[in-house]
């Protein structure tokens, strides 16, 4: 017997958005539906098919999900005459799911620009019961600066390379930022958002990978920046993983973390 069913849906104004709904054969009652927006400019399949694997693994554990293309990406069209808005698209996704009896609460899982989109939507919509941000916002601390300076000293070949070849031509900013997809909000604004999310009873989880060590260098950096998250948010640091989870083992690790975190919400 099939453990899940995948169905393409068109939704939003004039059906301009496209996504795949994954529904388990046995859905856990009363559980939120997971929404996965795009990562960077890649379509709903996700980098290295990550979003498909997350959706299917969560379905096997009893959770329904929607992975979809925001306007202008993959198979989705921008609204005519309107600026692209991931927030409007996430709202349309939540409404499309609710109309299919897959609401009223949602959990967002976003990587990179997807984490930014998830954060902005979660901050403004009370239907969001939880969010897992992967390589989302990161802000420096004194400890971060010390660690970074120490690592540079420990790798003189990097300093030598920089002296010989100059700054790398490829930006070291987060991919989504360097592509102009999003900007980090000021630290105080992000902190106020997290505070409101916690007060609303939202469940928060964060994952940082080794590819973002230039801005996130040690496990508890997030908690040092936002102490209000301590004791409330789940946080995982995966220094051996890269930003797009290129290695299968790291994808499996992330998927297990997401599944267990969701199961913990139920408990």
């Amino acid at each position: 017997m099939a453990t899940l069913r995948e169905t393409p849906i068109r939704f939003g104004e004039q059906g301009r958005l496209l996504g795949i709904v994954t529904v388990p054969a046995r859905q856990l009652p009363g559980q939120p539906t997971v929404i996965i927006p795009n990562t960077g400019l890649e379509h709903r399949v996700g980098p290295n098919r990550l979003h498909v694997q997350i959706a299917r693994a969560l379905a096997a554990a009893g959770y329904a999900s929607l992975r979809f293309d925001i306007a202008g990406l993959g198979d989705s069209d921008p609204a005519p005459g309107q600026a692209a808005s991931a927030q409007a698209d996430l709202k349309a996704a939540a409404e499309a799911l609710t109309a299919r009896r897959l609401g009223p609460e949602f959990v967002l899982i976003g990587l990179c620009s997807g984490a930014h989109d998830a954060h902005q939507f979660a901050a403004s919509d009370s239907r969001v019961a939880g969010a897992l941000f992967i390589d989302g916002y990161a802000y420096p601390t004194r400890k971060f600066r010390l660690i970074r300076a120490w690592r540079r000293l420990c790798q003189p070949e990097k300093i030598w390379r920089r002296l010989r070849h100059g700054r790398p031509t490829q930006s070291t900013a987060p991919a989504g930022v360097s592509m102009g997809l999003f900007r980090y909000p000021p630290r105080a604004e992000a902190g106020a958002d997290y505070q409101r999310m916690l007060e609303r009873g939202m469940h928060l989880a964060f994952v940082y990978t080794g590819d973002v060590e230039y801005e996130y260098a040690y496990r508890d950096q997030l908690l040092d920046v936002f102490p209000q998250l301590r004791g409330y948010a789940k946080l995982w640091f995966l220094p051996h993983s890269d930003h797009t989870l290129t290695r299968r083992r790291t994808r499996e690790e992330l998927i297990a973390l997401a599944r267990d975190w969701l199961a913990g919400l139920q408990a």
Partner: protein
Amino acid sequence: MEPFYFGRSQRPLFGQRHAPTGVARQTAVLICPSWGPEYMRCYRGLRTLATRLAATGFESLRFDYSGTGDSEGMALDSRLEHWLEDLATAAAELRALSGCPRLAVLGLRFGALLAEAAIRQGLKADAQILWDCPASGADYVELMRALDQGRDRIKAQRRSRSAQLIQRADNELCGHAWPPALAEAVSALPAPMARPGQLWVHSSDHAVARPTGAEPLSLDEPSHWHDEYWIGSPWLAVKASQQLTEKLVTWLR
């Protein structure tokens, strides 16, 4: 554009039907994507192509091979013989949906090699479009390996010693499953044979020896298939889609 699943119930395939927006032509175009990072990179670009084709009267079908993209299946179970069956299934689906008497098979990169193999196995195609077709399966696999190693090298240089990426498993390549049987079968894919009704399309930076007498189309844009930086960036192929569509309007008349 109509998204749907089709094919065998054990291995449904995800497809996107692009029906013609004006007067329908007599040839439908089956679009066979590439694999792995090239598949990801060209997704939106092939959609652009299908939209342009539809606007000029060509019905087309885009689809994902089993175990890839939105199609059913675990990537680790991928087999070349499954993908050849998938291609034949998609061709039959497109013929049935469009009612067109003629079928053109358009393959991009690995998709061109796969379409060639399907035609050798008996797939009936009235026209074959090979877009930046690798010289052979072995050539394609060698490039993917080089790109994978190149990207690893860049990451290793950027990351600190304490945060190195874990080793790649033997059965993965460029972030995608690459089981040994698949690797062997893809590596054995031969160079395309010359036959009537072939259009060889190549980007400005992609030189490949085409058979004598084959119809050529030189695109103005580069495609950067060999660049480890570009391979992770989307290729929208806007001008290439326009040039190719204009060519097909006359060539498939």
